[in-house]
């Protein structure tokens, strides 16, 4: 794609001695741009400044039209996923100082349709997430059955607890090589969530859930590149979840 760069220096006043970096922001509006271009801004930063704060500084002080999605600013909502210096990361969870680079390039996540600039559409992620039935399946409930609650041992909890940390930021799907070529692939996020519920001792919908992911664009299309696990900001290991799910499907686990 053609790339055009314009260097713009921000003049935000600061009280402390700051260093500065060049922030390259990918600009693309699918409604009237034919190709992505980059705009460059010189941004001052402190050792605690995050990439999201740098983008917001550009937005606030120079170019209001930069398209970026964010909300909590504390790696909880999963809104600000983007490619930062070539790697999918959360902008609010990535400090400029830890990137060890004088130039920070931010681009929209791969494998997602672009809405504008750094904001991408999440429909496919949410659809596949919904498809694997991300909830406990059983006939009785704690609400209707007043005589019992669904107890678990610490060992049973350990089977799936790390997969509960998923914030649906989409970084794993962005890093997945199969997602890039197979538009029908379920993706590591949904597969990890399928494992989270299959491994939950309270869940009774294992057969149902395994059937859903057992199709020609399901779990078997994972190449085990492992990039999904490398980029997860919450320490979830989708690649391991997928391999454990395969264990269920091959009959190694009950």
């Amino acid at each position, binding site marked *: 794609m053609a790339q055009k760069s314009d260097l713009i220096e921000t003049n935000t006043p600061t009280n402390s001695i700051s260093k500065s970096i060049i922030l390259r922001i990918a600009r693309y509006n699918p409604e009237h741009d034919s190709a992505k271009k980059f705009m460059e801004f010189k941004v001052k930063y402190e050792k605690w400044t995050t990439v999201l704060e740098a983008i917001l500084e550009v937005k606030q002080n120079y170019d209001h039209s930069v398209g970026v999605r964010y909300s909590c600013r504390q790696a909880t909502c999963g809104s600000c996923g983007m490619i930062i210096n070539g790697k999918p990361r959360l902008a609010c969870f990535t400090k400029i100082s830890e990137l060890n680079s004088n130039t920070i390039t931010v681009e929209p996540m791969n494998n997602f349709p672009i809405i504008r600039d750094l904001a991408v559409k999440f429909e496919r992620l949410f659809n596949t997430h919904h498809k694997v039935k991300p909830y406990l399946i059983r006939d009785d409930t704690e609400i209707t059955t007043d005589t019992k609650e669904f107890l678990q041992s610490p060992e049973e909890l350990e089977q799936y607890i790390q997969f509960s940390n998923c914030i649906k930021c989409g970084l794993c799907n962005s890093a997945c090589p*199969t997602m890039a*070529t*197979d*538009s*029908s*692939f379920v993706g590591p996020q949904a597969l990890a969530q399928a494992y989270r519920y299959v491994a939950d001792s309270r869940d009774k919908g294992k057969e149902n859930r395994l059937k859903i992911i*057992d*199709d*020609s*664009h*399901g779990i*078997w*299309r994972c190449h085990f590149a492992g990039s999904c696990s490398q980029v997860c900001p919450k320490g979830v290991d989708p690649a391991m979840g997928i391999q454990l799910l395969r264990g269920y*499907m*091959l009959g190694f686990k009950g």
Partner: protein
Amino acid sequence: MRESVIMKIHYGTALAAVALVAVHILMRLTQGFAESLEYDSVITNYKFLPYAGMLEIILILISIHGFNGLRVVLLELKQGRVYEKAVSYSCVVAMIALIAYGSRTIIMVNTGMV
């Protein structure tokens, strides 16, 4: 057929093929490489039924594994109901054709047609 069943067959054929191809290579080491490819040597091997049977099994295993692998690669390249059905059926037909062609050679030798 469910994808998990297909993939079990895929992994199973790979493991079995590795074992049998190892036996096949060991058998070939009993004589020189050039000698083993001579016409009379090949015909003799085909007439030795246990060995010919093993070659037939290798052919079946590798055809199943190979064409399923090709199917998977093609399904990842492009998606669509018609395309996917065409790929799946074409791979099955190609697999059967290759097995039939290889088997024909062994049958021809053992029925005296060669």
